[in-house]
Structure formats: structure tokens, C-alpha cells
């Protein structure tokens, strides 16, 4: 029985299934938010996680990875993300019901009352500080900060991992070349975040939790933050082992585990497999299918989506805002698209021009 659960868990966290599951979970929570954010449902799921954790604690491999001192914060991250996502959605659901009935929101009721900073705010801050000082002391006394062997350029540790908060980007290195994973995507993240207030013209939902009044904004942000950032950090910490191979949570980190890597460029699919001829010599002709495909994606998608799916949004935002937003959106979407194509078709590059270091 125990073994069965472990095997099932390891089977479920294989990258394709893990991504499908987390995506499905987020979608389900957003769609059925009224039912799923009920405190009883949330409490029961938390208990379920706790039970699984207690069960898994007995396993050497699980314990080894979870109790690594630097991995403790990732557990805190996981738990606090679950909790705060629930809290925010719960309040959004309650507020949306109140708005429907024409009542003021939870925040609206309280915002009319003003209280003195001393003592009402000052004591909340004081309690916070005392609690967190205590927590830090207990944590620091019970878990020693790690120190490994002295630095050596000669011996590369396996796995070599970036600091945990950059593991999402390191995961991207599997699917994209470094100039995209390490330079382009982080720049887009920062620029995209900064652009948010200037792109989102919806005046509603300022100063209170709500979902119904800004469904796209919240879904898009949660997709980026929860699925493409936090979830990849968790995956990179707990599920990526030596050689960046994939390991289930109950699996031993065997450095000799090899995953076959036979990834194929789109140009090979097109010229060799579809047309049955050798690939042309000139890089531009050879890569024409990928170039056209990506050009089509970035040039044709915004107007198409703007006339169909996002018609109302395009009208409200105006052409400049809408196009900037769409390009950020398409880049965000390209990440999971490429991941899925890698897992299903072993696609290596849409455009592969190693001659110029230009691979997408």
C-alpha cells in the first residue's frame, strides 16, 4: 500500500503530468472558486497535505530532500502561497457576492472608520516583529546554515543549481537557449511587471479583493506567478537532481540516471520528415518554416485575437496598449507551448541557426 502511494506520487510528478496537474488545479480553483474556497474544503485539503507529509516523512529519500537546510524556505513558500491564494480568492468570492447584492465590500465597510495609529497599528506591528524575531531565533538555533567544501574550479558539483529563486529560469534553460532563458525572459518579466499599471485600464477592483470585476488580469497574473514561476521553483528544488534529470520525490538521486535526449529541430520535421528531402544549405531557407511560423504567431495573433476572443478588451484598451499587452501575453504563452512541444514531439528549436547563435 505504502509503496503503491509512493509509486503513484512519483508517477504524478513527472514533468508533463506535474504541469498538467498544476494547470488543471489552478483552472479548477478559479472556475469553481465559490465551492472550492469554502473554508471546509480548504481545511480538508490542508489536512490531506499534512497527512501525505507525515506519511512521506518515513521515506529516506523524501526526508533527505525536504530537510536540506536551504530547502526549508521552499516549503514555507509552498505553504504560504497556498494559504494566501486561498485567502485572496475567498475574500474575492465574498466581495463579489456582496457587490451583486449591492452591498459594500468587506474593505468598504471598514474603510469608512478611521482609527488612531497609536495604538491600533503600532501594536499590530509590534506583535509582528516579536513573532518573527522569535521564529527566526528558533529556526536559527535548530537548523545550522550549510557550508560545503571550499570552492574549487576543478570539481563541478552535480547538480549545479542556481539560487532557488532563479530555478524557474534555470528550468527554462532546458527548453530555450541561454540568451532567451537568461536574458530575454527576465527582461520581459521586469518590463512586463512595470508596464502592468499602464496596460490595465480597468478602473474597478482598486483597493479590495474581487475576481468578477477583473477576471483576465487575475487569471493572467496567477498563471505567470503561480504556474510559471513559483511552481517551477518548487519543481527545480525538489524534482531536479543530478544532470538536471527528473526525480520523483521518493526516488534516490542517482547520478547515473540518464534520460535519452534526441531532440529534433522543426526544420528537420519539415524538410526531412514531411518533404522527404535533405535540408537546404542556406540557413535562412532551411529555417524558413520556423521563421514564418513565429512571425505568424507574433504578427498575426494580436489582430486575430483582438477581433475575436479579446474583442471587448481591445476596444477598451486602444491599439497601443492592446498590442504591447498581447506581445507580453504571447511570450508568456510561448513558454508552456515550447515545453509541451518538447515533451510530446521532442522539438528542439523552432528556428535553429547555430551558425549565428540564433536559436529559438
Amino acid at each position, binding site marked *: 500500500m505504502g509503496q503503491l502511494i509512493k509509486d503513484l506520487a512519483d508517477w504524478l510528478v513527472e514533468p508533463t503530468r506535474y504541469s498538467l496537474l498544476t494547470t488543471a488545479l489552478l483552472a479548477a480553483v478559479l472556475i469553481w472558486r465559490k465551492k472550492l474556497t469554502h473554508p471546509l474544503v480548504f481545511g480538508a485539503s490542508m489536512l490531506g497535505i499534512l497527512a501525505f507529509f507525515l506519511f512521506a516523512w518515513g521515506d529516506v529519500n523524501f526526508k533527505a530532500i525536504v530537510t536540506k537546510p*536551504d530547502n526549508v*524556505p521552499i516549503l*514555507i513558500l509552498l505553504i504560504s502561497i497556498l494559504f*494566501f491564494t486561498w*485567502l*485572496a480568492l475567498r*475574500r*474575492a468570492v465574498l466581495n463579489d457576492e456582496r457587490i451583486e447584492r449591492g452591498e*459594500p465590500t468587506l474593505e468598504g*465597510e*471598514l*474603510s*469608512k472608520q*478611521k*482609527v*488612531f*495609529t497609536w*495604538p491600533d*497599528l503600532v501594536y*499590530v506591528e509590534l506583535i*509582528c516583529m516579536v513573532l*518573527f524575531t522569535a521564529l*527566526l*531565533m528558533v*529556526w*536559527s538555533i535548530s*537548523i545550522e*546554515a550549510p*557550508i*560545503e*567544501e*571550499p*570552492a574549487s*574550479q576543478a*570539481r563541478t*558539483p552535480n547538480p*549545479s543549481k*542556481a*539560487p532557488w529563486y532563479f530555478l524557474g529560469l534555470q528550468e527554462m534553460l532546458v527548453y530555450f537557449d*541561454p*540568451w532567451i*532563458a537568461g*536574458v*530575454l525572459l527576465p527582461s520581459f518579466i521586469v518590463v512586463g*511587471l*512595470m508596464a*502592468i*499599471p*499602464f496596460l*490595465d485600464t480597468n*478602473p474597478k*477592483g*482598486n*483597493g*479590495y*479583493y474581487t475576481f468578477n470585476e477583473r477576471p483576465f*488580469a*487575475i487569471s493572467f497574473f496567477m498563471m505567470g506567478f503561480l504556474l510559471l514561476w513559483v511552481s517551477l521553483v518548487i519543481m527545480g528544488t525538489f524534482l531536479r537532481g543530478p544532470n538536471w534529470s527528473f526525480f520523483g520525490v521518493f526516488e534516490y538521486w542517482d547520478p547515473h540516471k540518464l534520460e535519452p535526449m534526441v531532440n529534433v529541430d522543426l526544420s528537420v520535421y519539415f524538410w526531412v520528415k514531411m518533404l522527404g528531402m535533405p535540408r537546404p544549405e542556406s540557413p535562412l531557407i532551411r529555417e524558413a518554416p520556423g521563421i514564418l511560423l513565429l512571425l505568424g504567431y507574433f504578427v498575426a495573433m494580436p489582430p486575430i485575437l483582438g477581433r475575436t476572443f479579446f474583442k471587448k478588451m481591445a476596444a477598451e484598451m486602444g491599439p497601443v496598449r492592446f498590442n504591447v499587452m498581447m506581445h507580453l501575453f504571447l511570450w508568456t504563452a510561448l513558454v508552456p507551448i515550447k515545453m509541451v512541444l518538447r515533451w510530446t514531439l521532442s522539438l528542439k528549436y523552432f528556428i535553429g541557426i547555430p551558425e549565428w*547563435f*540564433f536559436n529559438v
Partner: protein
Amino acid sequence: MDKLFRYIASTQIWRSIFRHGYPDTPRNRTLAVLSNVVLHLHPVKVRRSGIQLSYTWCMGGLTFFLFLVETITGLLLMFYYRPTAELAYQDIFALREHVPIGVMREVHRWAAHLMVISVWLHMYRVFLTGSYKPPREFNWNVGVILLVITLLLSFTGYLLPWDQLAVWAITVGTNMARATPFLGHEGPGAALISFGGLNFIHAGDDVRFGLLGGRFVGEAALMRFYVLHCVGFPLVAAGLMALHFWRVRKDGGISGPL
């Protein structure tokens, strides 16, 4: 007891510091906030909704608190740490060996991890309450820069223990800079910047070289990261935080429904 307190509160020393009575009347509560340099970051009165934990999650405040913790523990660590390839590892190791119940390194490390988490959660909360909408667009942008600085603070600190974990994590992180378009020697377009067959961008002068002060993570990189970690980024962060807090008030306090 009561008498003693009353006596202390009536001494000239006490009254030179606190220029108001015990804050249990509206007047004294106002003065308590206004006449204290730390507290006057706050307005005298706040909206009930803005101090509710279930609304703000207290994550911005927690981030600031953790920044202060980092400053204090970091200062103490600097007493014991010399940033050279020869001594750095020894010094960190000696902290464990020679300081009996020393927890400063632990507090510094765990608080740093927590700060990254709390700043993410703060951003998450600000987004979900739509608090970036007018008039707070500018402060959201200050926040994004603070987020980047927080990550850079943590990243530069990661190298300082000079053990295998540190050096290789930074190697992995900075390897990406090699591929910067045009400016990294393995980036697309770098080969275009050449003259008469001579490449201007190569491993000895690209952006990664500039970051690390060398072709690999060595002594020069350690010194750069140390200076940035202990002086550069904290100063920038402190300045931006002052701006951030000031703007929170100028933008009408913590957001709430209008």
C-alpha cells in the same frame, strides 16, 4: 510602582525625549505619532481596512523588518569576514567553530530567504487588491525595482561563503550573461560586432567579464559581489524604500475602496 513610573515620566531626561503624556487621549496619541521620527512614517489616523491583516497580509512591513534584521546581522558578520579567496571560507567556517552559540550567520541566511518570499507575497497582494491602479502606478514601479534589488542582494550574498555551493550557483547564474545578445561572446549578434575579421566581443571583454572582473568566478568577482552586497545594493534599497514609504502616504495611504 505607579509612583515610580510617574516619577520617571516627570524627570527632565524623560520629558526631553517624549514631549507628550501617556498616549491614551486623542491629543497625546496624535503627538505620539507626530513627534517620533520613526512613527511619523505613519499618518496619525488610518483606515480600519488598511490595517487589517487579512487585507495587507503585513507583507510589506515584514519585508522592511527583515531588511532591518539583515542590516544588523550583516554588520555583525562583517566584523569577522574578509573577502579574499584565501580567507573568506576560513572566516565563515571559523564562525561555526569558534563562536559558541553564534546564530548570526543563521539569522542572516534564513531572514534573507524569508525576505525574498515576503517580497513576492507583498507584490502578489498588491496585485490582487488592484493597488497598482491610479494613483499608485509610480509606487508599483518603485516596488518592481525594489524586487529586483532584493533578488540581487540575495544573489550577491550567496557567493560570499566561498564554498562549492556558492561558487557554482553564481557560475550557473552568471553563465547566462555570456549569451546576452550583442554583448555576450556567445550571444546572437556578437559576431556582427567585428572589424576586419577581428571580434570585438570575446570572453575577455563581454558583459560577463564585466560582471565578474574575470573569465570565471574568482577573486575579483568575490570583491565585486562583496562591495555590492554590503554597500552598493543596501544603499540603493534604503533610498528606494524611503521613496516607497513616502509615496504610500502621498498616494492616499494604503489602498481601499473609494
